[in-house]
């Protein structure tokens, strides 16, 4: 009997695709060190490392939650709004418990900080429970349920910030400033979020690979009906998964408060849920569920942040404009590369028929436009033409292969 391993499996310690991701990270760092005009990776390695470590840890904490939900066959679109709610709940609780200290920029005391953090985590648990209720009892598709909370929770957080400040402060405000020294310590010591991320990653890895619940999460994502028919309480497994996602987002929210010294629900972490999903997908999680690993998710997060950092180093001004574009391109490329083997084997075409023909100018325009805006119009024109020529050659090669080399 043949023993065909799934394409992603195999390899020592990490899966083959994860080694490839690791190599891509190293390559991206090396390229940036060379291409960056200031050579900041070379001259200020520690500062650069600190930046990337912080941003990776902040994203990674709730990317792990996103990965658990995705492996369980669901999706949580609400993480960004959950973070906003978490920051606001934390700040509001502290404001309620110690209004004078908060206003006077004085330390509020350990007990109040702990209460604020616990309130945030509790909010995460409640939101996760709400998601599970909507999905299993009301039977909304996970996409719809968490789309509703994506929009709703941010609004709720803004309302909470406004009403708390209106009730406790002389003037109402849309954000709450947090100056407690404990949060400053967290902000100034990058190892704290990194350590939390590391511990959480280890716990999640242990959970997914070494516990009954983890196996049930994989089974649920791989085949929900079969899991139920095997006697697995699928609703309870979902409850755990959605709570894990919401509570990791709540935990990440605490680091947002520390990092920005403010709970600003209007814009804090807006859109970051998609970065978390992207990190999980780049790391090998399948959106159809059942497939994914913690090492992959961690590497996916690092890769995403490294590439974003690389582009900001290379493009000096307004690099944050391009963040979304980078995430999009990285996701598409990562998932496409993971399928290259199957594509070649199955004789699948990347540019089929009329669709392929129209995709060539779309892709060439995109490439040319981006290069024109970041470098120069002339470079953009060259890049666009080069892309068009390459894709055209690919299209011609595919058409030739299909007419001549079809299996007889």
């Amino acid at each position, binding site marked *: 009997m043949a023993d065909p391993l*799934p394409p992603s499996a195999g390899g020592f310690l990490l899966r083959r695709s994860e080694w490839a991701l690791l190599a891509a990270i190293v390559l991206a760092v090396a390229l940036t060190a060379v291409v960056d005009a200031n050579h900041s990776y070379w001259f200020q390695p520690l500062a650069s490392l600190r930046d990337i470590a912080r941003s990776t840890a902040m994203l990674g904490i709730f990317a792990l939650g996103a990965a658990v939900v995705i492996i369980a066959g669901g999706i949580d679109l609400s993480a960004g709004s959950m973070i906003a709610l978490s920051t606001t709940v934390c700040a509001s609780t502290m404001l309620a418990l110690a209004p004078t200290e908060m206003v006077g920029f004085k330390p509020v005391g350990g007990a109040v900080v702990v209460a604020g953090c616990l309130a945030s985590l509790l909010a995460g648990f409640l939101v996760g429970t709400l998601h599970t209720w909507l999905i299993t009892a009301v039977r909304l598709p996970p996409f719809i349920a968490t789309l509703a909370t994506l929009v709703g929770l941010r609004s709720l957080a803004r309302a909470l910030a406004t009403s708390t400040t209106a009730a406790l402060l002389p003037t109402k405000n849309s954000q709450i400033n947090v100056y407690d020294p404990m949060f400053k310590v967290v902000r100034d010591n990058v190892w704290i979020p990194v350590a939390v991320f590391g511990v959480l990653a280890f716990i999640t890895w*242990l959970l997914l*690979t070494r*516990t009954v619940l983890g196996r049930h999460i*994989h*089974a649920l994502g791989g*085949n929900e009906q079969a899991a139920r028919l095997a006697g697995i309480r699928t609703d309870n497994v979902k409850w755990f998964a959605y709570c894990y996602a919401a509570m990791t987002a709540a935990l990440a929210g605490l680091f947002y408060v520390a990092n920005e010294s403010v709970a600003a629900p209007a814009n804090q972490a807006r859109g970051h849920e998609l970065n978390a999903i992207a990190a999980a997908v780049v790391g090998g999680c399948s959106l159809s569920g059942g497939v994914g690993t913690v090492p992959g998710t961690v590497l996916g997060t690092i890769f995403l942040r490294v590439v974003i950092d690389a582009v900001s180093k290379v493009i000096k001004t307004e690099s944050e404009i391009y963040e979304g574009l980078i995430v999009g391109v990285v996701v598409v490329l990562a998932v496409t590369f993971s399928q290259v083997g199957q594509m070649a084997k199955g004789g699948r075409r990347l540019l089929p028929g009329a669709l392929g023909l129209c995709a060539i100018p779309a892709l060439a325009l995109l490439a040319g436009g981006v290069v024109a805006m970041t470098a120069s119009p002339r470079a953009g024109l060259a890049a666009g033409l080069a892309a068009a020529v390459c894709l055209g050659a690919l299209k011609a090669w595919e058409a030739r292969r299909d007419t001549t080399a079809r*299996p*007889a």
Partner: protein
Amino acid sequence: MTTPPTDHGFGGTAIMMRGITKRFPGVVALDDVSLDVRRGELHAICGENGAGKSTLMKILSGVYRPDAGTLMIHGLSARFTGTRDAERAGVAIIHQELNLVEDLSVAANVFLGRERRGGLGFIDDATMEDETARILRMLECGVSPRARAGGLRVGDQQLVEIAKALSLDASILVMDEPTSALTEAESARLERTIQRLRERGTTILYISHKMDEVFRLADRMTVLRDGRHVRTVDRAATTPREITGWMVGREIAGHSFHEPRPRGDKLLEVERLTLPWPEHPRGYRLSDVSLDLRAGEIVGVAGLMGAGRTELLETIFGVSPPGWKGEIRIDGRPERFAHPSEACAAGIAMVTEDRKRLGLFPDLDVAGNVSLCSLAEAARGGLLSRAREEALVAGPIRDTGVKTPGPHAAITGLSGGNQQKCIIGRWLLTEPRILLLDDPTRGIDVGAKAELYALIDRLCRRGMGVLLTSSELPELLTLSDRILVLAEGRLTAEFSRAEATEHKILEAATG
């Protein structure tokens, strides 16, 4: 485009296959199959499940591409990349599985993907409905073209599938077990339609398990076994017995199961079970079904597709919505399981019907699939141990005779029979006393089937009670001590092993 058939006699060759080979991971579904089908004939393809009939038909209709070999339709080389190519070449297929969009009307389903359009390019429902009505009239089917497809009886849905293929006006029609869900009257109507199509010169490839049907309709027959072509013969030159012999290739070791097994206490009693079906005209999936099962007994449940076999097992196992009426007693205690986990705890196990859809976890390895229901035993202090899990699954893998390269091989690399043994092994680990088997040998080759029969018999001798359904009557007749027959959700007959014959069961199932 191929040339339309000019010769409606027996002169030309409609389909010529040479050396067709198709492999799937772990199995060779077709191995060097060559076959000629004459223009205008009705050619039956016979073979056990897993013999490769359906794969061959899917290659003919463009669903699969062969790995090797050539296919000629009406003398022209055919390289189909999809069903649309096959339809253009004049080949239409009536699939065994229903492929209807339940929320669309009958007419919309018949013309799905080939919608008729009016002058302005808008969809022309009136024309499609007229044409559908004409085809349905030919099938002597009274369903309205505007009816919602999902609301029809299974038999009518099958007729809509047939109408879909007929609407193509194909010169070659492939019928993959078209009567599996039809009552006797509906089958007779279908046979009259087939006669009419043959008068128009349509070439028909006909797949069926039912020997009497095949011998009534076919001009020639081809027998496939284990993916290989065994032989092609004229109907006049053979007998059903001979065909069956070629299909099976050897005697299934069936006689040993007729030794009486020690009978124990009543494990399971079902009394006046009624399972409602609100959105359906019939109103119920099961109505007033009663049965009992003793330790050491195998009770078979026969019935056509949609008769309620699966629903009966699912209700016992706690899968069905809780609205059912009646009583289910385990060891004399009334139980209403709200979730399969409660049924498991009470000592019931269920091997589901559709292995791929309802039983298998393709992303877990062999050990993961087997240990799933008893994982807690492989954990210490909350953490799973690889060694303990391997030790746990070694027993059932040996007992059920799974052939696997190792406990951590991919489950998708095993053959259907070995996958099924893994799933049975999964349930044996829970040490059940009642085993519900829903069509356990579907899509499994003959050799593995015989092994599964022996396994089921062995389990029963250890005192397990087995409730078994099957789409194959010989299987029920081989294994069961008693056979219950369901028709449209009602229990219509009960036979002891001695009384039961295929004919009697079929009569009760279509009654």
